[in-house]
């Protein structure tokens, strides 16, 4: 047999048989998606907390995505005069994509921080396609250092940074494991079509705007999480601004028509945060949340559904503190989950909830 140089992956066997190593034939790993991570929006005025959140955020995302350089993104945002990613129109997002080469953009907001022991924090995030400005995913997470408290106070996290790291790592699992956009888990979601979420209003005693913003993000995350197509917040905000319409917790005929046309939504979901407070002591916090939502038909202006829930963090079974919820954000998430389920299904027997579904009248 004449000897010839063979490419390394080709193994020469007797009788002229050559075996190409399967490793070469293995499909090359797909190129990772390019993701731009916007600076964390700081609603609490705490740069240290922002840094404690951003660091694990970037570490986790770097394993799954090619991250755009922070300076490149900052220059692109400045060039587009974009201060609020979540208020950006699809055209503005497309320009960011062209400038950075990114396919996706992640926007994160830090809503609440409490650094004293036991620490607490709440954050939300939204993932946008830079090609068409669509909202692909939305998530919200809140945590307290008491969440895993066991007997003899074991399991309590008493400093902020470890809590932030744990929360961010857990939170991003829902992003990296997200379902494909447009997949409706329930037939009700498909029937509902696209929903435009108008930011909720608030009548709480304190920090009403912050409460409304936080619960709005909780509702958004829950809508998407349950397979309901949700209009991009930037398009909603831009539409309400251009028409100088009510932006918080209420829509009139003009805004309904404008939102329906701009977003393709058949319904608007909005509502009110009536209570968003936490009582009790530092070691035994008791959150109290009341949320009321309503679904309005964009075509007819009629209220198609209303739902409300009023709960405290200590409702339900409370043996050895099992079943307790220590933060407003976690409590609001549980309540919103049940409310959105009712939006899609018949009412269940959740205490404190009242729903109504208008049919055909």
């Amino acid at each position, binding site marked *: 047999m004449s000897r010839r140089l063979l490419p390394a992956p080709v193994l020469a066997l007797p009788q002229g048989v050559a075996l190409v190593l399967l490793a070469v034939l293995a499909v090359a790993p797909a190129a990772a998606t390019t993701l731009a991570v916007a600076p964390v929006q700081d609603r609490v005025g705490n740069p240290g907390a922002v840094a404690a959140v951003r660091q694990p955020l970037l570490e986790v995302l770097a394993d799954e995505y090619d991250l755009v350089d922070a300076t490149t993104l900052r220059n692109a945002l400045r060039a587009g005069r974009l201060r609020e990613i979540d208020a950006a129109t699809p055209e503005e997002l497309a320009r960011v994509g062209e400038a950075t080469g990114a396919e996706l953009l992640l926007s994160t907001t830090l809503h609440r921080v409490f650094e004293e022991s036991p620490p607490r924090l709440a954050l939300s995030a939204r993932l946008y396609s830079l090609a068409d400005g669509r909202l692909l995913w939305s998530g919200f997470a809140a945590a307290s250092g008491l969440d895993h408290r066991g007997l003899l106070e074991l399991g309590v996290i008493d400093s902020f940074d470890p809590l932030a790291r744990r929360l961010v790592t857990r939170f991003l699992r829902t992003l990296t494991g997200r379902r494909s956009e447009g997949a409706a888990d329930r037939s009700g979601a498909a029937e509902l079509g696209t929903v435009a979420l108008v930011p909720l209003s608030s009548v*709480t*005693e304190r920090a009403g705007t912050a409460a409304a913003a936080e619960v709005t993000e909780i509702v958004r995350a829950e809508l998407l999480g349950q397979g309901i197509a949700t209009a991009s917040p930037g398009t909603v905000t831009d539409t309400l601004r251009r028409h100088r319409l*009510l932006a918080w917790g*209420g*829509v009139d005929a003009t805004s*309904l028509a404008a939102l329906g046309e701009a977003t393709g939504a058949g319904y608007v979901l909005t509502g009110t945060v009536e209570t968003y407070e936490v009582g009790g002591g530092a070691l035994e916090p008791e959150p109290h949340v009341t949320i009321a939502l309503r679904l309005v038909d964009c075509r007819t202006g*009629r209220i198609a559904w209303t739902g*409300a829930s009023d709960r405290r963090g200590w409702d339900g079974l409370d043996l050895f503190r099992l079943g307790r919820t220590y933060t407003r954000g976690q409590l609001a998430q549980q309540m919103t989950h049940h409310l959105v389920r009712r939006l899609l299904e018949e009412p269940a027997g959740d205490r404190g909830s009242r729903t*109504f579904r208008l049919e055909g009248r």
Partner: protein
Amino acid sequence: MRPTHHRALFCLVCALAIAGCRSTAAPTEFTNPKFNFGFVERVAVLPFQNLSTDRQAGARATRLTITELLASGAVDVVEPGEVQAALGEFGTRVTEPSVAQAVTLGKTLNVQALILGTVTESSTQRSGGVAIPVVSLDVRMVETETGATVWAGSATEKGASAAARILGTTGEPVTETTRRAVQAVLDTLIR
């Protein structure tokens, strides 16, 4: 123990249970006998006035009234955002619309009647260790052709069951008490 003692004990327990039941005043009402309520198909619920110290009481009662009216199926209810927009046209904060304003609202919102209300009390009383919410509402309906009041009702509800009083547990959430008060009032309108 003699049977008479058993009966006496039974009567005493029943009396205590009855005494411990929710004590509420029967709703009072006014209905204009000459008004054709079948004419009312669509109403607007104006934000309730709040005379209590509970800051959320007005918004809570307004929202629950809307829900209960919708749930009854008796009338359609205008989206609150529309109501706010229409009230905003008046330029000043309107809590009690005048006759002219009521007629204007009727045309703007395309409603045959307005529902106006006042939360006169939303507080928590203490009975021993039990927190008992108390809610009082006054609600009325104004028809939008002449601005006349065609129905009015008021109700007071207390939110502690006999079990809560006897066992010393907490009463129901104020939202539940408010909802029962709204239902009690609307029961005098919707039959």
